[in-house]
């Protein structure tokens, strides 16, 4: 019965959208923040809002600076 499969897909998609809508942040940003990954879009947003006078670095430069800050000093995880 193709109708049943289509309905199931539609309801799964609906459930997924409802879940995403309830997340505190969009799924990609959520993954980034949980794993401690760099978030270029958020950084650009921050620069535009708080430091409009500064030039926006390229994604490559941002990534390099991020790694230096993240792994530059001190332990960040446990045994």
């Amino acid at each position: 019965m193709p109708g049943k499969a289509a309905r199931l897909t539609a309801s799964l998609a609906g459930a997924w959208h409802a879940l995403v809508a309830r997340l505190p942040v969009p799924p990609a940003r959520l993954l980034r923040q949980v794993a401690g990954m760099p978030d270029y879009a958020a950084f650009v947003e921050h620069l535009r809002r708080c430091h409009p006078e500064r030039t926006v670095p390229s994604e490559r430069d941002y990534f390099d600076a991020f790694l230096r800050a993240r792994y530059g000093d001190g332990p960040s995880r446990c045994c």
Partner: protein
Amino acid sequence: MPQKLAWFVLAAAGAGAWGVLALHRGETISAAWLVLAAVGTYLVAYRFYSRFLAERVFELNDRRATPAERLANGRDFVPTSRWVLFGHHFAAIAGAGPLVGPVLAAQFGYLPGTIWIVFGVVLAGAVQDFIILFGSMRRDGKSLGQMAKEETGPVTGLLAMVAVLAIMVILLAVLALVVVNALKDSPWGVFTILCTIPIALLMGFWMKVWRPGRTIEASLGGVALLMLALVGGRHVAESPTLAPWFTHSGLTIAYGMIAYGFLASVLPVWMLLCPRDYLSTFMKIGTILLLALGILLLLPPLKMPAVTPFIDGSGPVFAGKLFPFAFITIACGAISGFHALVASGTTPKMLTRESDARLIGYGGMLMESFVAVMAMCAAAVLDPGVYFAMNAPLATLGGSAESAAEVIRTWGFSLAPGQMDALAAAVGEKTLLARTGGAPSLAVGMAQIFSGAFGQGLMALWYHFAIMFEALFILTTVDTGTRVGRFMLQELAGHLWAPLGRTSWYPSIVFASALVVAGWGYFLVQGVLDPLGGINSLWPLFGISNQLLAAVALCVGTTILIKAGKARYAWITLLPLAWVLVVTLTAGWQKVFADDPRLGFLAHAAVTAEQIAAGAMDPERGARLIFNDRLDAAVAVVFMVVTLLVVLASAREWVLVLTRRKPAVVKESPFVETAYAG
């Protein structure tokens, strides 16, 4: 009113589950009772005790801007949604510690360990994480060492730093040993783990060179490749031409890991370290969720007795009585000094509101404790005979399945003929005898739970999945730990000769990395060569060092409370501090001075000397064993002395403040009103 009723019902359910655990000793019961008792206790403690800490003791104030808000830079100071930060903080504190410790402590039965895991976390571990997170949040995200220096003086700060470095060396050695014991003579495991290195390199080049910053793409691809490597491992293990290439002795694997640790510390982070970090974070969160789901779906029966006769100190897995060694063996699940480094690292820079610290500091540690309870369940679902055959040293068991069955029968447990061989064949290994270190037992337990819950017949795949997951994040700890140790050593060495302190000067990088690797590598090789399996002597040393670091953190916490004029609440850190000190100093003393050669390092050295004199031991080998015993004893003494010095320096500070000879002023950052809408 209905809310109060709900809390009453919850408390009653938790208490009832503890009652079931208490009354059904000697019978097989479901893991459900363990889970229910733990979760009930956590929820009640979170609702009442952590609220008391947050509102009365710390007076968390949502009108006060957090460092993430005041210093926002879009990089490390980023206001983050509380549940997302909860996940991030949890991924940073959870590691091999809470998984391995409970598995080893299962030699006392499941009950003593579980009681310590649950009540230890509620009254000690979660309090430590919470107060350090709170202190660091009020000080712009300063580290534990910096806080110790500012609140108690430069000498304490330096001592704390030396303690952290020494602990790191022992930690890395013992975790590396866990991996060695899981991978020796296992071509499947070695192949899968070796594959993680090219996978990480590929991810690194993807994120850095080919598609800069696309970390999610790279990680998803990396996880997919990892699964391929896992499946491919089976074909390697079954191929008569390929298998010998990946079958290695413990010693070869140990030297391989030492070389890997050095490379990871010297190479740029983007190449190896950062991609592995992402890979292991996703694997960790995914697997722990899967394990929770498996236990809840299956609710397996616990076959281990609640309490075994080994509480008298005669246990084969590690020596020593229930007190103090159950509390040393289970370090991370109940209280872990290492968390103080994380709670004063990245997390305080990401809190959006002060009140979020309660969920993340206290709640995050409760979650870690729950992981430890699940590890205990996974060890207790094994037949006790199988558990002891896997965890007792080879020297005790004799070389064959028959001799092992005989030895285990004398301990009062049974092992059916052929049971160990059948199990080894089912998980795709040649033998599972004497695989000390906890990782293989946990993997067999997890494989039983997973294959029971998600489909029979995949035992071998699940076993190697579990081994891969443990080895993956232990290796991540090894490379990040070596690197962190390198930075600390460079900072210390910079006091002696300034150029050595320049963290980006290549000769200094190579020198400091080699020194750190040589440090933990020495203890690792010593552990591999140890006739008793190494875990026996190294794991207690690790437990002692981790708990002593907790003592340092609790001292800093107490100082913060007293200087903030909250001396009447200082018991919240002083009571756990007293307990941790009693436990660790007793354990440390026994490890050094006990008369039993299985327990005391010095007694073991004396026995070895007698054996040499009697001609029963090769003098060269004996001399090495004696040296190692004395070294282990010296390390334990150094840990104890450094910690006592920190405690004394802190106590002096408390007395000065309480007798008003020193002003009660904390070095908090000044209050700034938040700009967020209330």
